[in-house]
């Protein structure tokens, strides 16, 4: 064991050797390098390196963005439950939730930096803002929320054993901890609106009957469905990540009480979401679609995106995980809990894919044709770099920071 490396470990914890840790991180570094090559090409040569067109302006990166932003919702929702509602047992999982949120949001924003084509003009959306645009609201909120997440992550970094020796930094970390409820409340406000507006921007597309929904005041129903689906899937993703960390490290890292509290809340939210999604689907199929002069099957008659997508999203990855999570004995079973969380997260990713890609693929004019799209290796590289980045930052944080406060107690 390298003494310089071991001196950085959290007090009283055991970690693998430095060599093994480096070997574990090689695949993630390779993924990051692949993404870096793709990013350099896109920035240097332009977006012609992608298969995006004027028709498919939203593609793989936006699917990844929407998916990770929904899955990262565990951070704000766990923060809300811990600091605002007062679920004290969630303090044992909040650090991991914050880190997962930070990874998701920073990765999504980095990917958007490439997606906009000219990052040097990225500030235009803030300065020359269209105040009626849902996309502008999303940009404002995710940027501000990334700031909040960075502030929430900072005290965890400052809790590193060696950093704690520096009095000024230790005090600053403690003082940030004391006012964390204020940041949690701000994060909740920002997240509610950007999660909603991500759904809202599809729901307001009147010219695309596949995505268009009616709603309440300026918000289409997709606004509320996206918020609900994110707070249902976010905690499930947090549970999945902690379970994966426990499996890889062969240690118990989070007390069952914290996981079960989160799973129970996710169960009710998933149940409500699936119920409302079914109502929304029925209204869309039997009211809005005929109103646009179409039938439900008109959406699925061409291309690879058949009616199976709807069945998979609503029934297989919607109703089934909701039922598993809602049965107390099933969600208390470690295997079933992981299966339900995995299915729930898959359903949300599928939902974001449908709204982003299928919406654009379906023709809206009588002379229009179904347009298919497949990403280039540069697009895959940049998207998968987010996975590499996530594993790398989580691994580093687990090794050197007290990510799981009860680790020592649970592994005597």
């Amino acid at each position, binding site marked *: 064991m390298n003494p310089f490396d071991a001196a950085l470990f959290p007090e009283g914890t055991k970690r693998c050797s430095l060599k093994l840790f480096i070997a574990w991180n090689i695949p993630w570094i390779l993924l990051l390098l692949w993404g870096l090559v793709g990013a350099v090409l896109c920035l240097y040569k332009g977006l012609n390196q992608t298969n995006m067109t004027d028709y498919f302006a939203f593609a793989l990166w936006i699917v990844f963005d929407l998916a990770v932003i929904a899955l990262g919702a565990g951070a704000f929702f766990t923060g809300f439950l811990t600091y605002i509602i007062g679920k004290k047992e969630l*303090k044992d999982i909040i650090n991991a939730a914050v880190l997962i949120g930070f990874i998701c949001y920073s990765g999504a924003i980095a990917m958007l930096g490439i997606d906009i084509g000219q990052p040097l003009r990225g500030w235009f959306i*803030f*300065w*020359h*803002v269209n*105040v*009626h645009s849902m996309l*502008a*609201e999303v940009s*404002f909120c995710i940027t*501000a929320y990334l*700031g*909040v997440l960075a*502030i929430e992550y900072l005290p965890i970094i400052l*809790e590193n054993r060696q950093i704690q020796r520096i*009095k*000024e930094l230790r*005090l*600053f970390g*403690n*003082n*940030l*901890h*004391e*006012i964390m409820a*204020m*940041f949690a409340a*701000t994060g909740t*406000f*920002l997240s509610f609106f950007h999660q909603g507006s991500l759904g809202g921007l599809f729901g307001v597309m009147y010219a695309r009957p596949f995505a268009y929904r009616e709603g309440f005041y300026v918000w289409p129903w997709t606004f509320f469905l996206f918020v609900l689906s994110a707070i249902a899937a976010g905690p499930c993703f947090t549970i999945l990540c902690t379970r994966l960390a426990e499996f890889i490290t062969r240690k118990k890292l989070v007390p069952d009480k914290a996981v079960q509290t989160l799973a129970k809340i996710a169960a009710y939210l998933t149940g409500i979401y699936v119920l409302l999604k079914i109502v929304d689907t029925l209204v869309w199929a039997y009211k809005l679609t005929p109103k646009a002069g179409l039938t439900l099957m008109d959406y699925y008659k061409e291309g690879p995106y058949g009616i199976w997508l709807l069945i998979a999203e609503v029934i297989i990855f919607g109703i089934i995980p909701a039922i598993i999570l809602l049965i107390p004995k099933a969600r208390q079973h470690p295997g079933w809990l992981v299966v339900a969380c995995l299915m729930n997260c898959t359903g949300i990713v599928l939902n974001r894919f449908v709204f982003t890609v299928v919406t654009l693929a379906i023709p809206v004019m009588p002379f229009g044709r179904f347009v298919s799209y497949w990403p280039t290796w540069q697009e895959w590289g940049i998207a998968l770099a987010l996975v590499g980045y996530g594993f790398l930052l989580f691994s580093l944080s687990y090794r050197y920071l007290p990510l799981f*406060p009860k680790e020592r107690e649970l592994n005597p």
Partner: protein
Amino acid sequence: MFPFCFEWKWDPDHFIFLGFLYLVLIIIGTGLGIAFLKTSAQVLGFMRERHFDH
């Protein structure tokens, strides 16, 4: 966008949208400011260090 920019309009839409943005930024800035000032006061000995249970 600030109210003195030529694109700004004195209407409820701009007030609400940018008003909330600045409110959020003020809250975040205030929070960081409080933590920084408290730390400075504790380091300089004007305030006692509190042992906070995480």
